[in-house]
């Protein structure tokens, strides 16, 4: 293999977006070492700038004629571009949210941003990797940075508890996942790239082998942990409640999106023989997530815990798109994740804003907020109603697209269940809106009575304002003006060879 050939095979240009994030990360580490805390805030703006550059690089990679790189270990097809963009966007918004939050807790900001960027890097690589070792390394990069961020408030015992729980459960699920993919390695006769594995397995055994099913189950267990699908969700509420809120925002959007990217790629590419089995398992996961997430969220008193259960339920909706496995199904997943990014991050920005001003997170403490802070009330209401799927907000269009795709594919039961559970979800989202808007001045909670006057000129508040506004505007307009988003979602699926192959196989079977 001569040098030129090798360069073409490596095709290193595909990881330019990751490269930019990596350089930003190094710049922050070095800058923090040299200048110390004095420029920490500027460094975080630098990080946001780096992420935006990376986003631009991603946009330029759209419709890349040569997506396969690193001798088949990495792919920059439109699907991976879309998921990487979701991860990058969520990281950028999370940094904007975290500046004043981290500063107020008295921990080092630059290090936090550095860890977050590492997690972003892991998530981005995970969205595009097509090889087992690559998948595992990027998964661990994402996971380990997440454990670190979860425990970042080291003086807060709840944060420590959350980190330990997350670490223990995460480590065991990684082990299970690793065992699953090691079976794949063996079954395929020593292949590591996903396509070769599929070919190897198909060649090795004509009929269905037990080993493949066992490997499938273990792999799904690992993935389900990442996307916190019931019954692998037990860590979610505790970790969400204890962790710093910006971390929760990233975990619920960026990390989850990366998990879904992994799920699609790994399951669709490596397990075509057992497609019915994994569809069945994911149907069960989706049903359990929607029912349990929505029902348990009804009883929550802590806002973050409520959002935690709500994110479990939302993941259930997204899984419908995966289970039906049609072209519109995958497109609806991508679309929903985009919309979910805006509304969930918007909601978390509002929660952070409220926590910064009052120091509490109980839902009942929000009562009467309308009188004191109409802007925050409006933003949080819009984001929550959108999560509940009220038209004409973005969330409604996301849900209706999934339902429409599911219905067309004949998954009536799932869609009807999703309809019923989203009616349930309106109730708990609206409960918060009711607390804020409906309560009389005399029913105002004590913390709201002492609510400080809004001052956006405090350090770090501007960026939080930007994050909130971005969430608010995107959530209210992304539904009405959603045609570009629909185009992106549909193109990302129709231009991805791996998904096309799978869709065609399904059509052929039918």
């Amino acid at each position, binding site marked *: 293999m001569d040098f030129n050939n090798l360069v073409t095979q490596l095709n290193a240009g595909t990881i330019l977006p990751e490269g930019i994030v990596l350089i930003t990360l190094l710049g922050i580490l070095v800058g923090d070492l040299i200048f110390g805390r004095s420029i920490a805030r500027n460094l975080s703006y630098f990080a946001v700038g780096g992420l935006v550059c990376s986003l631009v690089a991603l946009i330029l990679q759209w419709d890349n004629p040569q997506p396969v790189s690193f001798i088949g270990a990495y792919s920059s097809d439109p699907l991976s571009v879309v998921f990487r963009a979701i991860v990058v966007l969520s990281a950028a918004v999370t940094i904007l949210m975290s500046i004043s939050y981290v500063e107020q807790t008295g921990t080092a900001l630059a290090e936090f941003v550095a860890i977050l960027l590492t997690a972003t890097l892991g998530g981005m690589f995970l969205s595009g990797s097509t090889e087992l070792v690559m998948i595992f390394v990027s998964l661990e990069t994402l996971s380990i940075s997440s454990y670190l961020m979860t425990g970042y408030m080291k003086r807060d015992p709840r944060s420590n508890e959350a980190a330990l729980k997350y670490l223990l459960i995460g480590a065991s699920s990684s082990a299970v996942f690793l065992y699953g993919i090691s079976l794949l390695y063996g079954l395929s006769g020593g292949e590591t790239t996903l396509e070769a594995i599929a070919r190897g397995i198909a060649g090795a055994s004509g009929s269905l082998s037990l080993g493949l099913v066992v490997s499938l189950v273990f792999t799904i267990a690992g993935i389900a942990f990442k996307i916190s699908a019931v019954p692998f969700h037990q860590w979610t509420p505790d970790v969400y409640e204890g962790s710093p809120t910006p971390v929760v925002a990233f975990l619920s959007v960026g990390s989850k999106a990366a998990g879904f990217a992994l799920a699609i790629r790994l399951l669709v590419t490596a397990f075509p023989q057992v497609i019915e089995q994994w569809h069945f398992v994911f149907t069960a996961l989706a049903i359990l997530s929607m029912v349990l997430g929505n029902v348990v969220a009804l009883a929550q008193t802590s806002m973050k815990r409520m959002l935690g259960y709500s994110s479990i339920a939302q993941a259930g909706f997204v899984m419908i798109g995966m289970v039906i496995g049609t072209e519109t199904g995958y497109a609806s997943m991508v679309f929903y994740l985009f919309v979910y990014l805006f509304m969930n991050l918007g909601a978390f920005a509002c929660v952070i804003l409220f926590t910064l001003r009052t120091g509490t997170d109980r839902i009942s403490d929000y009562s009467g907020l309308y009188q004191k802070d109409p802007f925050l009330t409006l933003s949080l209401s819009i984001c929550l109603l959108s999560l509940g799927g*009220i038209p*004409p907000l973005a969330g409604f269009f996301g849900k209706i697209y999934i339902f429409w795709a599911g*219905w067309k594919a004949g998954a009536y039961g799932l869609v009807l269940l999703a309809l019923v559970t989203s*009616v349930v979800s309106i109730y708990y989202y609206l409960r918060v809106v009711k607390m804020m808007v*409906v309560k009389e001045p005399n029913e105002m909670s004590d913390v709201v009575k002492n609510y400080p006057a809004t001052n956006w000129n405090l350090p770090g508040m501007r960026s939080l304002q930007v994050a909130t506004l971005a969430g608010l505007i995107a959530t209210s307009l992304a539904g009405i003006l*959603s045609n570009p988003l*629909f185009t992106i979602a549909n193109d990302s699926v129709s231009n991805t060879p791996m998904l096309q192959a799978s869709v065609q196989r399904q059509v052929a079977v039918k």
Partner: protein
Amino acid sequence: MLSILLVVPAVGAILAACWPSHTRTIASTIALAVIGWTVFLLTQFDLSNPAMQFAENFTWIDALGLSYRLGVDGLSLPLVALNSLLTWVAIYSSNEQIERPRLYYSLILLLNAAVSGVFLAQDLLLFFIAYELELIPLYLLIAIWGGQKRAYAATKFLIYTALSGALILAAFLGLAWLGGSNSFIYNPALAHALPVSQQLLLLGTLLLGFGIKMPLFPFHTWLPDAHVEASTPISVLLAGVLLKLATYGILRFCVGLFPDAWQIAAPWLSVWAIVSVLYGALMAIAQKDMKKMVAYSSVSHMGYILLAAAASTPLSFSAAMIQMVSHGLISATLFLLVGVVYQKTKTRDINILEGLLNPERGMPVIGSLMVVGVMASAGIPGMVGFVAEFLIFRSSFPIFPVQTLLCMVGTGLTAVYYLLLINKAFFGRLSAPVQNLEAVTWRERYPAMILTIAVVLFGLQPGWITRWSEPTIAATLHQPPAVVASVAK
């Protein structure tokens, strides 16, 4: 042309929310502008054309098959006009010192836009979007400015309506998928090709959804609570316009999309109508609270519309249209009057109130209007209620004789409970607990007077309502229904 009916109130809502003062003036101006535009549309409406008029058509989201299609025909135009009128009445009759005026008026305007959207939408998904859009403003309007148990009533309203929305969406999704369509455009031909069993299934889901909203027994329990707890202007809108969303939906979608299945279901629906009519009337007799009584009378009177829809002859459809407008005007009048009585006497209990018609210390004008309103509701000739009920019975009798006779008992019962109300609260001597009433101002009388004049006017000239809808109805039901044919044999 039609988008203005949606855009103006929506922009007005934002304006009312953001402008620091004169909110009430802004809201009234917007409402008047909407009325003005409705009148303009009425003058431009081509009576001889049964099809959709002023149609607007843009593709909105291709991937979903959602298009922005508006249009108005004889079925929707009278209801659009009713919505514009009652929104202004609600704004005018709102308390001038209401708390949080900016939120209040902007929610009312938003509600107006959403309801207009429901009546104008020619795309099933667009209809659903507008139908759901009305949910949150109305929930907040009940929950913030309501009475003692408003939180309970508003939540109950929310759950029922959200469920009804989910059922309607399920039916629409089902229709689009089973019909093999890639869009949600309103297309009667779509359902024709389906086997009757599938049509019945979809129709059942749709009926359940609209039945909750309408409301029909046994899904009506949210209505008395919501009405009693909502403030007067909101009750006016709720009874006057929002219940019509469901009856309009039944005429437009249930009958319009599934005519074959509808013929099969019609006898059962007429029985359902009787149950609703009689149950509502009997419950109304048992009420002590005037507002609750009017609320149960709504349950009873909406049942007539189902009877007329089940008969599905051109005449019965015209009758249903008149009944919708008539119920909108009459129940709005009654709620306004009950609101005035409550405001002055601080009670709505007909066992406490007495002699309010007293010409000197009572409220003679309000009392007289109440008597007229009650007579109209009970179907006394000369008022629009009579025309509506008479036409319904006249047109349904050849098809469902027994059911129609039983429903007629309902009208008799209407007279019973309203006579009880009038007799106890307005006749007799002014009782001790309600002495020294504040004088009723002209402002409080105007809205009810305007509506009463309309009630009498349309009672004398019912053709002014039917002329809008007759061509459309004739075109919708151009084939004589099978049931009629079998009876004729």
